[in-house]
């Protein structure tokens, strides 16, 4: 239905810069997740799009029309607040009908639309309830219906499920995704939960200190994190600090041939990209603990320089506590000053996992 363009958005509050030079292009019908730690500016971005906060500079366009200076009631956006913000002096029906009444629709039309919206969120027949007679999840759904009934061009969701339990959250997430797909509404979704983002988003935008670190499809963000911050923020990640000398990443416990300039570097490896092999005592890493998750086993390791790692292994592999193991590094990424140096398999790695030679020096 609509295309959202954000150009060099910036918002400074007294003392802090909440959003800094943020640009984003959201295609028609796309669902974009804003992900980032607390205080990274997610809500501020959303509130600026909704019109509740005036940008210090930059522009917001919807379908090419500049809405930067429009007040919220004139924008074709619909926002669902984290605290749901239902009007407690109105019943469910009137909560949803309020916006329609402002548009001077006929009574019959309003009734039809409200009932349809209630059906859409799975609350048919709840119209006469007072808001305090609803569970938390139902309240969130009413808030969603209240926005959806007006058929906004852009739907803005600010952590709508934050206060709900895991189970309900997953169900509502599916429902929202479902409705969003069916209606094809361009949607911005703020969340703390990375699995929420990975499950729902067409694209994930990772924010940090008000700036965009990366904006890509979930699998790209997961597999090719462009900064060390993103690598650590999405999914589990092991970081190993050492230095690159002469085309080799040198760590006391192992080395890895890499094709980057010399200097300090941080190696990032996912637990599932670490393979373990038995080693002689006093060599390689030491197993601290292994936890059985049924589908896989998570092994906690410690390198000789104190670095802690996690490795994910097949459930049939058992590692004794304090056993010594060699690490076989699969897919990895190398960062320097938060920026990506290189990403990929160890050189020469093909079918079988490449053997990593134990380091010569200890």
């Amino acid at each position, binding site marked *: 239905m609509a295309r959202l363009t954000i150009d060099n958005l910036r918002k400074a509050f007294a003392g802090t810069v909440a959003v800094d030079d943020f640009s984003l292009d959201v295609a028609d019908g796309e669902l974009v997740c804003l992900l980032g730690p607390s205080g990274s500016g997610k809500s501020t971005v959303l509130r600026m799009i*909704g*019109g*509740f906060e005036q940008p210090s500079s930059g522009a917001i366009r919807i379908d090419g029309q500049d809405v930067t200076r429009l*007040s*919220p*009631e004139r924008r074709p*956006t*619909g*926002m669902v*607040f984290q*605290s749901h*913000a*239902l*009007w*407690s*002096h109105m019943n469910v029906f009137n909560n949803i009908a*309020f*916006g329609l009444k*402002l*548009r001077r629709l006929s009574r019959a039309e309003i009734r039809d639309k409200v009932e349809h919206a209630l059906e859409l969120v799975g609350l048919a027949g709840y119209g006469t309830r007072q808001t305090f007679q609803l569970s938390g999840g139902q309240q969130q759904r009413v*808030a969603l219906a*209240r*926005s959806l009934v*007006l058929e906004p061009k852009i739907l803005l969701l600010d952590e709508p499920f934050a206060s709900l339990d895991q189970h309900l959250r997953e169900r509502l997430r599916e429902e929202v995704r479902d409705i969003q797909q069916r209606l094809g509404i361009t949607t911005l979704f703020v969340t703390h939960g990375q699995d929420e983002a990975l499950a729902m988003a067409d694209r994930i935008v990772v924010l940090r200190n008000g700036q965009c670190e990366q904006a890509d499809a979930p699998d790209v963000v997961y597999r090719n994190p462009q900064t060390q911050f993103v690598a650590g923020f999405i999914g589990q990640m092991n970081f190993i600090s050492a230095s690159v000398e002469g085309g080799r990443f040198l760590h006391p416990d192992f080395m890895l041939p890499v094709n980057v300039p010399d200097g300090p570097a941080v190696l990032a490896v996912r637990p599932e990209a670490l393979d373990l092999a038995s080693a002689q005592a006093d060599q390689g890493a030491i197993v601290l603990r292994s936890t059985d998750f049924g589908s896989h086993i998570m092994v906690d390791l410690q390198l000789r320089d104190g670095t802690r790692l996690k490795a994910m292994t097949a459930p049939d592999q058992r590692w004794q506590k304090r056993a010594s193991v060699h690490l076989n590094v699969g897919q990895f990424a190398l960062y320097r000053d938060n920026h990506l140096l290189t990403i990929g398999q160890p050189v020469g790695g093909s079918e079988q996992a490449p053997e990593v030679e134990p380091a010569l020096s200890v």
Partner: protein
Amino acid sequence: MIAGFSTTSGRFDWTGFIFAILLAIVIAVPLLVVFTWAFTEVWRYPSVIPQKFGLRFWDQTLSRADVWEALSISLRLSATVTFLSALICLPAAYAFARMKFPGRDLFFLSFLASHAFPKFGLLVAIASIFLQLNLIATFWGVVLIQLVGTLMLMIWIPVAAFQAVDRRMEEAARDVGAGPLRVFWSITLPQAFPTIFAAVLLTFVSTFYETEGAWLIGAPQIRTMPVLMINFINNQVVIQYGAVLSVILWVPSFIALMFARRVIGTGAFAKGFGA
């Protein structure tokens, strides 16, 4: 107190019970005595109950023109003062609660300052000003003086009420297309209503019973019910006149309370004072 009764889970709540008994003694017994006196024709010491009941003093009181005149003046005064007070204070309270402007805190304090000094001194000072303005012994003079007395209540409570309204609710209303005025009318005001209504009610009742200002500025032309009652008590030793007037004076309180219960319910009423 209400919670004291409802939270008992099987076990008898002695604290609540004793509390209720004490309250009953303090409030109900004097009321009962006055009420009894109003319907008494003869009641001599040491009898516990009156020797003769009757409506003689009601007849005598209600047949007096000055009583009806005073009642009418009192009602008109209270209504006018409450209306004006609401007209002035509610927008001001909203401004204090929601807007930022220079001198806001100082201004807010000045509203409350009228109650920070000994009241009678202030009244005398105002009276001397009114004398020059020819406002003494006029209806509007009394309105003005009583208005000053209501400002604190009508500012303080509504400010708290407006501040307690969730901003997100207002933003959500803007989001679905309501302009600022519409948001105030459809969201903010209804949300704050129970508390504001309590403030209006308190203002009405307290104005109705106000005596100092009414007497100082209004006498002798403008005589309100309480002022009249004081006159009765001062001039005649017949207790019944005072008692009958007291009972009549309760009427607005009772009507107000009934009305309050119907409109907002006990829960919301308590909330208005608590949170």
